Protein backbone atom coordinates (compact mmCIF):
# COMPACT_ATOMS: atom_id res chain seq x y z
CA UNK A 1 0.00 0.00 0.00
CA UNK A 2 1.19 3.51 -0.70
CA UNK A 3 3.09 4.51 2.42
CA UNK A 4 3.23 8.30 2.12
CA UNK A 5 0.19 10.41 1.38
CA UNK A 6 0.44 14.08 0.58
CA UNK A 7 -2.53 15.53 2.48
CA UNK A 8 -3.53 18.85 0.85
CA UNK A 9 -4.08 20.34 4.33
CA UNK A 10 -1.36 18.78 6.49
CA UNK A 11 1.54 17.86 4.18
CA UNK A 12 3.28 14.53 3.69
CA UNK A 13 2.16 11.94 6.22
CA UNK A 14 2.52 8.18 6.72
CA UNK A 15 -0.42 5.98 5.82
CA UNK A 16 -0.85 5.06 9.51
CA UNK A 17 -2.53 8.43 10.05
CA UNK A 18 -5.29 7.59 7.57
CA UNK A 19 -8.16 5.15 7.30
CA UNK A 20 -9.34 3.90 3.94
CA UNK A 21 -13.06 4.39 3.53
CA UNK A 22 -13.63 2.61 0.24
CA UNK A 23 -14.19 3.17 -3.44
CA UNK A 24 -14.66 6.82 -4.41
CA UNK A 25 -15.82 6.15 -7.94
CA UNK A 26 -19.26 4.83 -6.93
CA UNK A 27 -22.26 7.02 -7.70
CA UNK A 28 -25.22 6.80 -5.33
CA UNK A 29 -28.36 5.67 -7.21
CA UNK A 30 -31.60 7.67 -7.19
CA UNK A 31 -33.82 6.82 -4.19
CA UNK A 32 -36.36 5.05 -6.44
CA UNK A 33 -33.73 3.07 -8.35
CA UNK A 34 -34.18 -0.69 -8.68
CA UNK A 35 -33.14 -3.11 -5.91
CA UNK A 36 -30.59 -4.41 -8.36
CA UNK A 37 -28.93 -0.98 -8.63
CA UNK A 38 -28.91 -0.51 -4.86
CA UNK A 39 -27.51 -3.98 -4.31
CA UNK A 40 -24.70 -3.16 -6.74
CA UNK A 41 -24.01 0.15 -4.99
CA UNK A 42 -24.07 -1.17 -1.42
CA UNK A 43 -22.49 -4.60 -1.68
CA UNK A 44 -20.70 -5.30 -4.94
CA UNK A 45 -17.04 -4.27 -5.12
CA UNK A 46 -14.37 -4.86 -7.68
CA UNK A 47 -10.82 -5.63 -6.60
CA UNK A 48 -9.01 -3.75 -9.32
CA UNK A 49 -5.38 -4.12 -10.27
CA UNK A 50 -3.86 -0.79 -11.18
CA UNK A 51 -5.18 2.71 -10.85
CA UNK A 52 -7.97 3.24 -8.28
CA UNK A 53 -9.84 6.12 -6.69
CA UNK A 54 -10.54 5.76 -2.99
CA UNK A 55 -11.86 7.79 -0.08
CA UNK A 56 -9.24 8.14 2.63
CA UNK A 57 -9.90 9.92 5.88
CA UNK A 58 -7.04 11.73 7.58
CA UNK A 59 -8.19 10.56 10.99
CA UNK A 60 -5.12 11.62 12.99
CA UNK A 61 -4.68 14.94 11.18
CA UNK A 62 -7.27 17.28 9.74
CA UNK A 63 -9.97 14.55 9.88
CA UNK A 64 -11.06 15.49 6.35
CA UNK A 65 -12.18 13.00 3.72
CA UNK A 66 -9.74 12.89 0.82
CA UNK A 67 -9.94 11.33 -2.62
CA UNK A 68 -6.71 9.41 -3.21
CA UNK A 69 -5.87 8.21 -6.67
CA UNK A 70 -3.26 5.46 -6.44
CA UNK A 71 -1.95 2.37 -8.12
CA UNK A 72 -2.53 -0.92 -6.30
CA UNK A 73 0.40 -2.55 -8.10
CA UNK A 74 3.18 0.02 -8.07
CA UNK A 75 1.93 1.88 -4.93
CA UNK A 76 2.37 5.14 -6.78
CA UNK A 77 0.08 7.96 -5.61
CA UNK A 78 -1.14 10.06 -8.53
CA UNK A 79 -3.23 12.67 -6.76
CA UNK A 80 -4.79 13.54 -3.41
CA UNK A 81 -7.67 16.01 -3.31
CA UNK A 82 -10.01 17.16 -0.59
CA UNK A 83 -13.25 15.17 -0.75
CA UNK A 84 -15.53 18.21 -0.60
CA UNK A 85 -13.57 19.94 -3.36
CA UNK A 86 -13.67 16.79 -5.49
CA UNK A 87 -17.45 16.50 -5.02
CA UNK A 88 -17.97 20.17 -5.92
CA UNK A 89 -15.77 19.78 -8.99
CA UNK A 90 -18.14 17.01 -10.12
CA UNK A 91 -15.14 14.90 -11.08
CA UNK A 92 -16.66 11.64 -9.90
Amino acid at each position, binding site marked *: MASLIHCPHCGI*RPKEEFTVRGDASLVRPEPDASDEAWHEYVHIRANPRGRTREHWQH*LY*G*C*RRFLVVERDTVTHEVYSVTDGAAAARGGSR
Partner: protein
Amino acid sequence: MLFQSRHPLESKIGSGSSIRAVDHLEIPRSVAIATVLSHPDETAAVVAGFAAAGDLVMRNVAPGEWLVLSHIERSDSLERRLSGLLTDIADVVDQSEGRVLLRLSGPNVRRILAKGVAIDLDPSAFAIGQSVNLRCGHIAVNFARSGENEFELVVMRSFAESLLEDLLLMGREFDLSYGFSGGLADPD
Protein backbone atom coordinates in the same frame (compact mmCIF):
# COMPACT_ATOMS: atom_id res chain seq x y z
CA MET B 1 -20.87 23.05 46.27
CA LEU B 2 -17.31 24.07 45.72
CA PHE B 3 -15.83 23.01 42.39
CA GLN B 4 -12.18 22.17 42.65
CA SER B 5 -10.13 22.27 39.50
CA ARG B 6 -7.65 19.42 39.37
CA HIS B 7 -5.12 18.90 36.61
CA PRO B 8 -5.55 15.52 34.83
CA LEU B 9 -1.86 14.74 35.39
CA GLU B 10 -1.85 15.78 39.06
CA SER B 11 -1.49 12.26 40.47
CA LYS B 12 0.92 11.18 37.75
CA ILE B 13 3.39 14.04 38.04
CA GLY B 14 3.19 15.23 41.63
CA SER B 15 6.20 17.44 42.24
CA GLY B 16 7.96 16.23 39.07
CA SER B 17 11.68 15.54 38.62
CA SER B 18 13.96 16.59 41.45
CA ILE B 19 16.58 17.96 39.03
CA ARG B 20 15.78 19.88 35.88
CA ALA B 21 17.68 18.50 32.89
CA VAL B 22 18.58 20.44 29.72
CA ASP B 23 15.67 18.72 28.00
CA HIS B 24 12.54 19.42 29.94
CA LEU B 25 8.88 18.53 29.64
CA GLU B 26 6.84 21.29 31.18
CA ILE B 27 3.12 21.06 31.89
CA PRO B 28 1.59 24.52 32.39
CA ARG B 29 -1.04 24.22 35.10
CA SER B 30 -3.49 26.81 33.96
CA VAL B 31 -4.05 27.42 30.30
CA ALA B 32 -7.30 28.43 28.62
CA ILE B 33 -8.05 26.47 25.44
CA ALA B 34 -11.00 26.90 23.07
CA THR B 35 -11.90 25.37 19.73
CA VAL B 36 -13.08 27.65 16.94
CA LEU B 37 -15.00 26.21 14.00
CA SER B 38 -15.64 28.61 11.16
CA HIS B 39 -19.02 28.67 9.47
CA PRO B 40 -18.93 27.61 5.79
CA ASP B 41 -17.17 30.19 3.59
CA GLU B 42 -16.31 32.43 6.57
CA THR B 43 -12.74 31.20 7.04
CA ALA B 44 -11.14 34.41 5.76
CA ALA B 45 -13.35 36.52 8.05
CA VAL B 46 -12.36 34.40 11.07
CA VAL B 47 -8.64 34.73 10.23
CA ALA B 48 -9.11 38.51 9.92
CA GLY B 49 -10.87 38.50 13.31
CA PHE B 50 -7.94 36.72 14.92
CA ALA B 51 -5.51 39.16 13.33
CA ALA B 52 -7.53 42.08 14.72
CA ALA B 53 -7.42 40.59 18.24
CA GLY B 54 -3.63 40.42 17.96
CA ASP B 55 -2.65 38.57 21.12
CA LEU B 56 -4.29 35.17 20.52
CA VAL B 57 -2.23 32.00 20.05
CA MET B 58 -3.72 30.14 17.11
CA ARG B 59 -3.20 26.47 16.36
CA ASN B 60 -4.26 24.98 13.02
CA VAL B 61 -6.39 21.87 13.30
CA ALA B 62 -8.05 21.58 9.89
CA PRO B 63 -9.33 23.97 7.22
CA GLY B 64 -11.65 26.35 9.08
CA GLU B 65 -10.86 24.87 12.49
CA TRP B 66 -8.45 26.09 15.16
CA LEU B 67 -7.43 25.76 18.78
CA VAL B 68 -6.98 29.05 20.60
CA LEU B 69 -4.68 29.18 23.63
CA SER B 70 -4.27 31.79 26.31
CA HIS B 71 -1.94 31.70 29.28
CA ILE B 72 -3.25 34.85 30.88
CA GLU B 73 -6.99 34.69 30.41
CA ARG B 74 -9.35 32.44 32.32
CA SER B 75 -11.29 29.88 30.30
CA ASP B 76 -14.69 31.58 30.63
CA SER B 77 -13.37 35.00 29.68
CA LEU B 78 -11.52 33.56 26.66
CA GLU B 79 -14.68 31.86 25.43
CA ARG B 80 -16.74 35.00 25.98
CA ARG B 81 -14.20 37.19 24.22
CA LEU B 82 -13.91 34.85 21.22
CA SER B 83 -17.68 34.48 20.92
CA GLY B 84 -17.99 38.26 20.86
CA LEU B 85 -15.20 38.62 18.35
CA LEU B 86 -16.52 35.95 15.97
CA THR B 87 -20.28 36.40 16.28
CA ASP B 88 -22.13 34.82 13.34
CA ILE B 89 -18.98 33.64 11.60
CA ALA B 90 -17.72 30.86 13.88
CA ASP B 91 -18.66 28.54 16.74
CA VAL B 92 -16.55 28.70 19.89
CA VAL B 93 -16.39 25.97 22.53
CA ASP B 94 -14.31 26.11 25.71
CA GLN B 95 -11.99 23.09 25.95
CA SER B 96 -9.83 24.13 28.90
CA GLU B 97 -10.86 21.11 30.98
CA GLY B 98 -10.88 18.83 27.94
CA ARG B 99 -7.35 19.30 26.65
CA VAL B 100 -3.91 19.26 28.21
CA LEU B 101 -0.92 21.29 27.07
CA LEU B 102 2.59 19.81 27.24
CA ARG B 103 5.69 21.81 26.35
CA LEU B 104 8.91 20.09 25.36
CA SER B 105 12.11 22.12 25.19
CA GLY B 106 15.85 21.59 25.00
CA PRO B 107 18.64 20.91 22.52
CA ASN B 108 17.59 17.29 21.90
CA VAL B 109 13.83 17.75 21.45
CA ARG B 110 13.89 16.87 17.77
CA ARG B 111 15.64 13.57 18.44
CA ILE B 112 13.14 12.82 21.20
CA LEU B 113 10.10 13.70 19.11
CA ALA B 114 11.38 11.86 16.03
CA LYS B 115 10.67 8.62 17.89
CA GLY B 116 6.94 9.29 17.81
CA VAL B 117 6.22 11.90 15.19
CA ALA B 118 6.39 11.31 11.42
CA ILE B 119 6.91 14.81 10.06
CA ASP B 120 10.04 16.68 9.07
CA LEU B 121 11.13 18.58 12.19
CA ASP B 122 14.09 20.34 10.61
CA PRO B 123 14.01 24.06 11.51
CA SER B 124 13.82 24.93 7.81
CA ALA B 125 10.87 22.58 7.21
CA PHE B 126 8.82 23.36 10.32
CA ALA B 127 8.96 27.06 11.16
CA ILE B 128 8.33 28.72 14.52
CA GLY B 129 4.61 29.26 14.95
CA GLN B 130 3.64 26.49 12.56
CA SER B 131 1.11 23.95 13.87
CA VAL B 132 -0.58 20.77 12.67
CA ASN B 133 -2.57 17.83 13.93
CA LEU B 134 -0.61 14.61 13.82
CA ARG B 135 -0.10 11.22 15.35
CA CYS B 136 2.43 10.86 18.15
CA GLY B 137 2.91 7.16 18.80
CA HIS B 138 -0.71 6.03 18.70
CA ILE B 139 -2.25 9.26 19.99
CA ALA B 140 -3.67 12.16 17.95
CA VAL B 141 -2.21 15.47 19.12
CA ASN B 142 -2.11 19.05 18.03
CA PHE B 143 1.55 19.83 17.51
CA ALA B 144 3.21 23.23 17.24
CA ARG B 145 6.68 24.72 17.20
CA SER B 146 6.60 27.49 19.78
CA GLY B 147 10.28 28.42 19.87
CA GLU B 148 13.71 27.69 18.44
CA ASN B 149 13.98 24.32 20.24
CA GLU B 150 10.55 24.24 21.82
CA PHE B 151 7.43 22.33 20.82
CA GLU B 152 3.94 22.30 22.31
CA LEU B 153 1.54 19.38 22.23
CA VAL B 154 -2.16 19.69 22.97
CA VAL B 155 -3.82 16.38 23.71
CA MET B 156 -7.28 15.21 24.75
CA ARG B 157 -7.54 14.97 28.53
CA SER B 158 -8.03 11.22 28.74
CA PHE B 159 -4.96 10.55 26.57
CA ALA B 160 -2.71 12.87 28.57
CA GLU B 161 -1.35 10.24 30.98
CA SER B 162 -0.59 7.87 28.16
CA LEU B 163 1.13 10.56 26.10
CA LEU B 164 3.15 11.66 29.13
CA GLU B 165 4.39 8.10 29.62
CA ASP B 166 5.28 7.85 25.92
CA LEU B 167 7.17 11.15 25.96
CA LEU B 168 9.10 10.24 29.09
CA LEU B 169 10.08 6.93 27.51
CA MET B 170 11.11 8.70 24.31
CA GLY B 171 13.18 11.14 26.36
CA ARG B 172 14.80 8.66 28.72
CA GLU B 173 17.93 8.54 26.58
CA PHE B 174 18.43 12.24 27.31
CA ASP B 175 17.34 12.17 30.96
CA LEU B 176 14.26 14.20 30.11
CA SER B 177 12.95 15.90 33.25
CA TYR B 178 9.33 16.91 33.80
CA GLY B 179 7.13 18.96 36.04
CA PHE B 180 4.29 21.43 36.36
CA SER B 181 4.82 25.11 35.79
CA GLY B 182 2.76 28.13 36.78
CA GLY B 183 0.82 28.67 39.95
CA LEU B 184 -2.01 26.57 41.26
CA ALA B 185 -5.28 27.15 39.47
CA ASP B 186 -7.79 29.28 41.37
CA PRO B 187 -9.85 27.03 43.60
CA ASP B 188 -13.18 28.74 42.79
